[in-house]
C-alpha cells in the first residue's frame, strides 16, 4: 500500500540491514548508500520519496551533506545519528532536516516519524482542518475544539498552536517558535515559550504534566504528536 521509496545513507552495514528489513516489511521500497558521495548521486538520479541520513559518514560531514542535498531535494529528510547533543539536533533541523532520531532508536518511533513526515509532504495547500485524536483545529475559522467543545485560546496561544498544527508530527525548535510567533527580536526570550506551552497544555491536555499532544523534545523544542 505504501510503496514510498526511501533511500538510506548510512555507513554501518548492520544499521542498513536492520532498516531495510524494518522498512520493507512495512511496504516501503528501500535503496541504500554507504557513503555521502554515493548517496548524493542516488538521490539526484532517482529522487526518492524520503531520505534517511546518518550524520557520521566517512567521506563527508553529515551537516554538509544535508545542506548540499537541500539545495535541490525537497522531499523529507530524517536524520539518524549517534550524536545526541542538542546543538547537533538543532543544527540539523535548521539545515532543513524534517526530523532527528538518536541511535539507539525504537523501530516503532522511526516508523511513526516516517509516516508523519511523508504525510506532511503531500503536495497542495495545507488542509485547514486538522484532526489529531480528540483535538480539532480549523485554521480557516481559527477555532480549536477538544472533544467537540470549543477551547478558548488567547491570540498568542492560538498563534503558537497554529504553528504546531501546520507542522503536525514535526519537532519545532525553540528559536523557530519564538521567531514565528513572537518575532525575530524574541528568539532569546524562551521564558515566553515555556509559559505559553504550559498554558496551552492546561487547556488541551487531560493531564498537563503528562502531555499527550504537545510533547517536549528535551533541549530542542516541542512537537505536536500526529496521531494515526
Amino acid at each position: 500500500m505504501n510503496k514510498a521509496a526511501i533511500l538510506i545513507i548510512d555507513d554501518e552495514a548492520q544499521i542498513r540491514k536492520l532498516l531495510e528489513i524494518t522498512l520493507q516489511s512495512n511496504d516501503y521500497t528501500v535503496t541504500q548508500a554507504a557513503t555521502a558521495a554515493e548517496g548524493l548521486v542516488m538521490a539526484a538520479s532517482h529522487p526518492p520519496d524520503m531520505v534517511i541520513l546518518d550524520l557520521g559518514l566517512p567521506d563527508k560531514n553529515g551537516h554538509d551533506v544535508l545542506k548540499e542535498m537541500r539545495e535541490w531535494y525537497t522531499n523529507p529528510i530524517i536524520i539518524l545519528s549517534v550524536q545526541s547533543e542538542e546543538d547537533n539536533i538543532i543544527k540539523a533541523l535548521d539545515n532543513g532536516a524534517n526530523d532527528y532520531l538518536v541511535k539507539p532508536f525504537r523501530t516503532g518511533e522511526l516508523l511513526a516519524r516516517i509516516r508523519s513526515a511523508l504525510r506532511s509532504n503531500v503536495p497542495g495547500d495545507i488542509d485547514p482542518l486538522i484532526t489529531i485524536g480528540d483535538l480539532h483545529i480549523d485554521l480557516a475559522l481559527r477555532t480549536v475544539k477538544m472533544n467537540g467543545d470549543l477551547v478558548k485560546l488567547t491570540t498568542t496561544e492560538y498563534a503558537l498552536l497554529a504553528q504546531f498544527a501546520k507542522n503536525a508530527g514535526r519537532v519545532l525548535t525553540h528559536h523557530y517558535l519564538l521567531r514565528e510567533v513572537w518575532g525575530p527580536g524574541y528568539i532569546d526570550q524562551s521564558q515566553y515559550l515555556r509559559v505559553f506551552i504550559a498554558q496551552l497544555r492546561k487547556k488541551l491536555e487531560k493531564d498537563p504534566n503528562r502531555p499527550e499532544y504537545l510533547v517536549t523534545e528535551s533541549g530542542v523544542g516541542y512537537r505536536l504528536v500526529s496521531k494515526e
Partner: protein
Amino acid sequence: MTILKIDKTSRKNQYIFSVLAIVIVSSICYAFSSLIGYRVVAYILLISVSLLAMLFDILPVLVAAILSALIWDFFFIVPYFTFQVSSAEDTILLLMYFVVALVNAALTYKLRKMEKATILKEEKENTLKLYNTLLNSLSHELRTPIAAIIAATDNLQNDSSRLSALNRNELVAEIEKASFRLNQQVENLLNMSRLESGAIQPKNDWCDVNELIYDTVKRIEENNISQRISININPAIPLFKLDKGLLEQVLYNILVNASQYTPPDSLIEIISTHHANILEIIIQDNGNGFPKDEIEAVFDKFYRLKNNRSGGTGLGLSIVRGFTEAMGGAVSLENISTGGAKFFIEIPAKTSYLQNMKNE
C-alpha cells in the same frame, strides 16, 4: 600539604625570604646580645636555618646557612665587626657552625625529597587501584548484558522449535533489557569523560521545573520500574535559568539508583520548591537507606557499596555530584530515620515569575 604549597612559590621568593629571615633573626639577637651569649645566638641561627630547610629548596637554604655563619662571625664573635676570630676555640666553633648548618640543610632536603617520592608513589598506586576498580566493574557491567544478548539470540536461533511462545517473548524481553542496560552504561561513561575532560559548560536557558521533573519521571518509567513515584512541586515555583540537560541527567541518575537499590513497590518521592533564587529538589525513598559508614563515599568516582548485589560501575552518583557542581549547586545525601534515603539538591539560578502575568 603546606610543604607542597610552599614548593610552588618561586625560587626568587625563596632566596629573598631566606635572607630576610636570617637578617631579622640576627637583628633580634643583636638587640638582646647583652642578655644572651654568642653561643646561644649560634643555636638560634642554626634553628632558623633548620626551619628554612623544612620549607625551601636546597640552594636558598645553603645561602641562608652561609649568610648566618658570616653574620655570626661578623657581629657576635670578638673582635666585633671583622671576620677575624681571635681565639682557637671560636675558630673551631665557627667551622663547626658551618658544617652543622650545611649538613642540616642537606639532610632536611634529602628527607623532604624522600617524602615527596613516597607521596607520588602512593598517588600512582591509588590511580592504578582506581583504574583496576573501573576495569573490573566495567567489564562486569558491559559483559553481563552482552552475555545475555548472545545467550538469548543463541536460544532463539538454535532451539526455536522447542521454545514456547512465552519463552520466545521472554528471551526477546531479555535482549531488550540488556540493550537498555548497555546504553545506560555508555551514557554514564560518556558523561564521566565529559566531566573528566572539564568539557562541561552549562548552557543555561529558561526551564519549567514542572515539565523537567515529569519528563524525567516519564523516561525512568519507560524502563518498567517496579517502584511507585510520587511528585510534589510547589505550584508557585518560578522558571529557573539553568542547564536543563544536566539537571535532567542528575535527577535521572538518582532515580535509576533508587529503582535499582530499593525493594519493589517502594515509594520514591520527588519534592521540589524554591527559596528566593535557589531551586530545591528532594528525592527520597522508603527503602533501606545507605550503610552509615559509606554514605560520605557514595558520590566518589567508581565507589560501589561494599555489600551490593547488583553491581554498578560507581559512575551514576559521581556524575550526579559532578553535574550538580558544574551548575554551581550542591547535592547531599542522608538516611531518613524511618528508613530510606534522601537526596537533597540545591541549585542557585536566575528566576522568572513570568507565568503570573496576565495573558495578552
